[in-house]
Each structure stands twice: as C-alpha cells, then as structure tokens.
C-alpha cells in the first residue's frame, strides 16, 4: 500500500490528534530506561533511545498480574472489562512480531483467550522501524528484519527530517488520511534507506538446522556447560516479548483469581504436589527455555519463538548470551 509523509516538526501534533480519539501508549523515559505507558501529553513520548524499552510491551496485552475473576456469592464473575480502543505508538518490529507469535497461543483455534483477544482487537499498532541496530539486536538472525511489516497497522521509517508512514492495514490507513502521499521518488528513498539499514544489522548466527541440532544435543554435555553460570532467575523470561507462561493464583484477601507471569526458570514452576519435578535442576530448566524457543516453536508453527530483541542478552545478570548459546550449539562437537 501507499506511503505517506509527515514532517518531524508535525509529529507531536499528529500524536496529540490521535490522543483526542484514542488512548495512546508510547515509550516514556523512566529514569535510565524507557517503558511503554499511556501518555497524557504528546511530548512525553521518547523516540530518541536507540534501544528497546526495558519492560516488554507484551504486558499491554498480558499484564504481569491480571485479575481474571472475582469470587462473589460463591460464583466466579469475570473481570474482563470493556477495553477502549487504543494505539501503541513507537513499538519496534521485533516486539510486534512477538505479539503475532503469542496470538498462535492465546488465539489458538478452539481455545481463544478472551482477556488477550479483547485487548488485541482494540489495539492499533504503529511500529517504528529501526534505522540503527543496538549491540544486542539480532532480529535478522531469527527471520525478522528492522522494517518487518508483519503485525503492524502502520510502519514508520525515520528519514531524518520527516517520517514515512507505510500503510499496512486499513485500520492504519484510516489514521493517516490527512498526510500527503509520498511521490515515487520519495518512496524509493524510503526503500533505499530501509535496505541500507537492514544491511547494517549484524548476523549473530545462522539458524538453519538449529531445531535438529538441539534435539541431537538433548542429552549432551552441551547443556551442562550452558547451565553452569545460569543463576536461575527470571530476568530473561520476564523481559522476553515471546515468553507467555503464567500461573493462576487465588488471592483470597482480594477475593480474586489472578494470573501472573511465571517462568520455566523457577524450580517451583513444574514442581508437582507429590514432590516430583520433571525439571529438577537448572540444567533441565535452561534446556527447556532454549529448546522451547529454538525447537518446540519450530515444531508447532515452523517459526523460531525468539524475535531477537536482545533484552535477555542485555539484562542477564551473568551475561549468559542466548546468541552465544545458539552459536555454541551449532558448533558443538560432543567429546
């Protein structure tokens, strides 16, 4: 579809216009990092940070703690309220594609999650393409790209003194009617810029055959080495845009049944009432995390369950780098 243009100086008034119609969520500077939250003023928006928000935007659809039911008069009453139409502005392509991956879980045929769906349906996604990689980005190694259109309604490209708005869906189109359409030459400039930027993204590894390789390594000493430095905390999974595991807990004092994020990196996650644990040590748990992303997702939907956002790489307290783990797996020769 067509591309429309917006002068940078007009961006804030454009956003203010959006805010008049809908709630707008955008990256906002919060101390040393940015975080998606609803903005009250257009200028709260922060698009300057080259790297991604620290807390993943999946939380806008699957909040870390989400009350599901209230227990009232002996009955479970759903707390799924009316969701107002909203716009996410400035989300990156890796995070948008992660939402699509999560759709295959929460919007699975015959088992649709109403809490997820309600928010998904009411959300318009305006993606900001990345003209510059950060040191932990590896989207191009896992089948993504810095200008990936999948899942977006509009895709923005930063062209220096103006933004190019590429229309991806009708829903996106409706928001940019007032902008001038890019002439052919300008549209080509945008394409060139995108191609050039994409080429600057380094390939961390080649994912070909990774699924089979990991299955071969299932009982290998490879995992012994990988898990050694892992502490078993939940940083990698909680900051991951594609990790979706949750726990359902009854909070008696609130009279609510709540779902909270959970992580396969915790021992209690798979601990059964009998005391038996199918994943008793951090070896099994580390293996589960990596194999889920790089083997089981491929088995189920033929896509890698990692979008290369790099959050786990950056914030792992022991610098256990998933890129290094995959590289090592690819080259592993069992002694």
């Amino acid at each position, binding site marked *: 579809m067509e591309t429309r243009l917006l002068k940078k100086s007009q961006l804030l008034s454009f956003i203010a216009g959006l805010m008049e119609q809908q709630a707008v969520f955008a990256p906002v500077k919060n101390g040393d990092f940015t975080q998606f939250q609803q903005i009250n003023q257009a200028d709260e928006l922060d698009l300057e940070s080259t790297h991604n928000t620290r807390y993943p935007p999946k939380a806008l659809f699957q909040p870390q703690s989400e009350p*599901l*039911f209230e*227990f009232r008069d*002996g*009955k*479970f009453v*759903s707390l*799924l309220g009316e969701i107002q139409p909203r716009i996410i502005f400035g989300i990156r392509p890796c995070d948008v594609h992660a939402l699509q991956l999560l759709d295959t*879980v*929460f919007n*699975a045929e015959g*088992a*649709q*999650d*109403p809490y997820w*769906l*309600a928010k998904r*349906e009411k959300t318009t996604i305006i993606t900001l393409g990345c003209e510059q990689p950060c040191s932990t980005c590896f989207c191009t190694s896992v089948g993504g790209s810095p200008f990936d259109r999948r899942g977006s309604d509009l895709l923005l490209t930063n062209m220096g003194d103006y933004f190019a708005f590429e229309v991806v869906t009708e829903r996106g189109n409706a928001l940019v009617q007032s902008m001038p359409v890019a002439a052919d030459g300008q549209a080509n400039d945008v394409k060139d810029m995108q191609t050039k930027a994409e080429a600057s993204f380094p390939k961390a590894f080649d994912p070909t055959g990774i699924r089979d390789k990991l*299955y071969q390594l*299932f*009982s290998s000493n490879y995992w012994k080495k990988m898990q050694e430095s892992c502490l078993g905390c939940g940083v990698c999974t909680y900051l991951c845009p594609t990790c*979706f*595991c*949750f*726990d*359902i*807990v*009854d909070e*008696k004092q609130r009279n609510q*049944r709540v*779902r909270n994020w*959970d992580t*396969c990196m915790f021992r209690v*996650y*798979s*601990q*059964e*009432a*009998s005391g*038996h644990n*199918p*994943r008793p040590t951090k070896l*099994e748990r580390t293996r*589960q995390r990596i*194999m*889920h992303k790089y*083997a*089981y*997702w491929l*088995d*189920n939907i033929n896509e890698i369950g990692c979008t290369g956002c790099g959050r786990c790489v950056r914030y792992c307290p022991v610098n256990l780098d998933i890129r290094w783990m995959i590289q090592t797996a690819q080259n592993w020769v069992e002694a």
Partner: protein
Amino acid sequence: MEHNQNLYEPIPMRIARVIQETNDGTLKSFELVFENPQDKDQFYSNYNVGQFCQLSIFGKGEAPFGIANAAWEGDFVRFTVQKMGSFTQAIHKMKAGDAIGMRGPLGNGFPVDEWHGKNLVIIGGGCAFSTLYALTKHVLHPPIRPQYNEMHVIYGARTSGMCIYKEDIASWYGRDDLKIYQAIDCPEDGWCYYTGFVPVVTKQIAPSPVNAVAVLCGPPAMVKYTLPVLTELGFAPDQIFTSLEKRMKCGVGKCGRCNIGPKYVCKHGPVFSLAELQELPEEL
C-alpha cells in the same frame, strides 16, 4: 467477535456423594452434579472417556483430575482424589451438598473409536486406575460392549485396604465378558487373588499382543517397569497407551508448564501412545 465462553471460568457444580474408597482415608471419590442443565448437556456432548477436568475451590486454586465415570452412568461426574497437597486436602474436607467449580472436559481422552474390534488389556495401579475404571465402565455398557473383543483388567494396589471401587470390581468377577486380575504388593491373610507388583503380575498373566492394545496408568515406577514387560510380551509401541500427569494451571495449552517437548499434556494428551512418547524428549 463474541467471546461467549471464558476458557478459565469454572462451571458451578455440587457434590452429590462422597465415597471413602480406602481404609487409610487418603482416597475419596466425589460425585459432582451440574447446577445448570445447559452445562450438563455441553459437558456430555464433548466428553470422551480418558479426559480430565480442572476442579476449582476458591482460595485453593485449581487442580486436574481424571474423570472416573462413563457417560452412561448417570448425570454426574466422578473424580477419585488422593490427599496430597493443599487443594486435595481442602476437597477431602468437603461434604455432600458443598459447591465446587469445574472446568472441562479437557484433553484428548482415549482413542476408543480406533480400538473397535480389538482386545483391550487394561493395566492400572493405585488411584491412577480412575480413568481406566471409566474406560472399563464405558466398554461394559451393553450397546458399546460388542464393539470390542476380549477385555482383561489388571489392577494393583498396595494392600487390600487400598483397593478402590471395591464393590464394582468384586462384581466383575462374575462376568464372562471381562477378566479381572487384582493384585496387592505384599501377601495378606484372606487375599485370594494375585500378590506382587503390577509388572510381575502382568508377566505371569502374559496377555497376548495379537489384535490387542494395552492401556497403562499408574505411578511412574509402575509404568516404567511394566513397559519392558509389555514389549517383551510382543506389544508394539503403537499398541501401548498411557495417560500422563503434570503440574497444570490452565488446562488448555497456554500456561506452558505441562509440556513434554512441543506437546502439552493438557492439550495434546493426557493420553499418548508409547510410539508418540518415543518421539518426544525424555522429560517426564
């Protein structure tokens, strides 16, 4: 889009009957009846023997239990529960008339239609026998029974006092369309059936693998040692079925914790053939 059904919302049930199954008080069966007739219709239109439900007690959360009755038995759903963690302790304190939530039926259940015309060898141990009991009851239903051939049921418990469904199982001895073999682990005065662990007893009985399927449920150790016996007897991996248990929360393939490799026990299982399990990573 309409979201008329909330996956996580339990339907209201009421406990109609509580049955003390064993003399040590650790196993009880609960028969639940539906508060709303439309829930009942929906349940039975989906129910396949071998499936499970998430029972729900507010404050204690939810826990999965295999359904221990066949659809024809009546308008109730039976579960046999072993007292183990906080949820099962809470349900053990409940009485007839108490309200409880239920989600289900969940999972795949036994592929009973694929087994038409076959001999069934049912091998169970402890309280995991519950879904096998449901399977046996299902097959024994007069309109269904002719669809299957011979039926052998091997059931082991630790002691005679730990046997469940006592009355029903006693009545099976009189039948000519079913062979029941009961076993307890150690000799006991007055016990006139088999003595020994299930794998050993299975070896003694030596059911034939010809045109047969073996359905196996029990504690992990029992399953582990019975599988080689069945293989030795000539059962191929696609003739052996088992039902797995894992820690579960959602029961609908979302919360993530019950996976074995790419398969979720709650969604793709709990019933798997040995052939299917051999394809999966070993992480039980």
